[in-house]
Every structure is written in C-alpha cells, then in structure tokens.
C-alpha cells in the first residue's frame, strides 16, 4: 500500500474512516516508519491544541440555572415575519424597492387625475347661451332683460343643471345637460 496522505492519517486517528480503509491503514502503519512518525506528530499537535484550549475553560462551571419556560409564540398574523424571511441579493432588493416606488408614484398620479376631472366649461357655456337665446327670443318674455343663469354640477361632474331666473330670482326655465 502507498503511504496515505496526512489528512487520511488524521481521519484514521479520529476514527472517521470506513472499516476497510481503517484496516488497510492499520496494517500499513505497523510496517511504515514514515507514517508512524507522521502519526506521532499529528498526535502531539492535537494534544498541544487540546491542552491549550483546556486552559481557556472556566475554573468553576456555574450550576445549571432553572429554565423559565417562555410563553408560547402567538400565531404570526402580520406580514412582518414573511417579509423578514425574504432574502434578496442587494441588487434585486434595490430593483424591487425602485419598482414599488414607481408603482406608488404612478398610482398617486392616476388617482389625482381621476379626482380632478373638470366639466367641459365650453360645452356648459354653449348650453347656457342657447337657453338664454331661446328665452330672449320669446316675445312674451322679451321685456325681462335681467336674466341670471345658475349651473349646478352633480357629484360625478357628469351632468349639469342650468337654471335661468329673472331679476326677481324666479325660476323661468331649467335644463339638465349630460356632459360628454
């Protein structure tokens, strides 16, 4: 048998080899002075390290304290533990954070635009003018010169109610217009 390397001899000393290899090495070592020397060195080094580490141990070991059983953990209902378990590489984490920020900004913009829909004022003005014209064109009503128009938008700004009143604030006519 060829001389085994240092690691194999070390594993042999630690009894971490399979039965066959162990037997082969055991037979070899009995007849090989070189391997016996290596084994001596390995044993001496191991003893030196073990004895040195032994000196770092405490002089007195405290008695094992009573173990206070902690209260059982509550069911995890929040997202926090789930988020904590997500492990991303820094680049991926930054990418995700950026994507979330962009999505939030986009959402805010769309929401704002939806809320700030304004009725088409030109369309409303056109309707008011037409109503005034038809009212003034009526010979019976011609003497009423002081005409006032009120317009009321509905909550969704989809329709407008136009009311024509005279100077006495009496409603003369009203019309509901659906806006495009």
């Amino acid at each position, binding site marked *: 048998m060829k001389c085994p390397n*240092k*690691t*194999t001899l*070390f*594993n042999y000393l*630690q009894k*971490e080899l399979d039965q066959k290899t162990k037997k082969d090495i055991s037979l070899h070592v009995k007849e090989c002075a070189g391997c016996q020397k290596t084994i001596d060195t*390995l044993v*001496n*080094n*191991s003893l*030196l*390290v*073990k004895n*040195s*580490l*032994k*000196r*770092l*141990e*405490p*002089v007195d*070991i*405290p008695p*094992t*304290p009573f*173990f206070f*059983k*902690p209260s059982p*953990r509550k069911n995890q209902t929040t997202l926090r533990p789930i988020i904590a378990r997500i492990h991303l590489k820094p680049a991926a984490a930054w990418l995700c954070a950026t994507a979330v920020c962009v999505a939030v900004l986009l959402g805010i913009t769309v929401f704002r635009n939806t809320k700030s829909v304004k009725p088409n004022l030109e369309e409303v003005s056109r309707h008011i003018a037409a109503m005034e014209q038809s009212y003034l064109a009526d010979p019976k009503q011609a003497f009423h010169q002081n005409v006032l128009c009120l317009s009321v938008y509905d909550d969704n700004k989809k329709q407008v109610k136009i009311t024509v009143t005279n100077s006495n604030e009496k409603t003369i006519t009203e019309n509901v217009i659906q806006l495009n």
Partner: protein
Amino acid sequence: MPEFETTYRDLFPVIFKFLYRMLGQAQLAEDITQESFVILYHQLGEIGNPRAWLYRVASNKAKNIIKRNKTWHQIVSKNNEATVSRDMENDILENEKIRLLRKSIQSMTARDQTLLQLYMDGLSYREMAEVTGLRESSIGKFLSRAIEKCSKKLKKEFS
C-alpha cells in the same frame, strides 16, 4: 416536555464551556447559552440533532459578538481582573499566558477557531459539518490543517 428538560440539563454545561472558551467571560457565556436554549425550546420539534443545532446557534452568536464588539480586549481583561485575587504573582503569569493563548487562537480564521473548539468537545465530523455548514468530507482536511496551524502558533508564542 421531558425531552427538552433532559437536553437542557445535559447540554447547558457543555455549551457554556464552549462559549466561555470563545468569549472568556462567564456572564456573557451564560446569557448566550440561555438565549440559545430559548430558541431551541420554540423549535425543538423541527430540529433533528439538538446538540449540533445548539453548537451552531451558540457559535454564530459568539462570532457576532466578537465581530461587533470592539471591546473584545476589555472583555478578556475584565475576566482576567476577576481572577487576580488568589495568588498575585502566579495569577499574573497565568493570566498573561492565557492572554497570549487567546491571542494566538484569535489570530486564526473564524472557521478554524470554530473547528478547533468543536474538536475539543469531541463532535463527530458529521456534527461538525452540521455546525459549520462545511461538507463532511472536507472536515478532516480543514481540521487537520487548523490543528497544525494552531500548534505552530502556540510553539512560536510559548517557545
């Protein structure tokens, strides 16, 4: 939970000694041992080998403390001060030797230090692999090299 109680009673002194060798301070070692057992208590059903698991948790916690704590030398010196009352001269010499010993071991990589500590406690290669995350087939190589490096350092320091 009788299984946990047996584990606690058997392994508390073992983990404490392991941590004390790494940190050099009894109170700190005891606190981390307790913390590790609290975590074990919650996860006992999910863990195959509590001994290897405890070593892994304890060594990770100790490594984090050493890495984070810039007052490592303060920890060691504080510990040394506590033992200086018996026989002054002997204690001073002994403390100096222990300081040099710690310094030699501390100058090694975290992986080598952990392997040496586990070797000291007689863990099998399989358990060492579980604790360190290394392959079982590589343990012999890394451990024998760590022992060789450590013994060289010690011979140099104490010759």
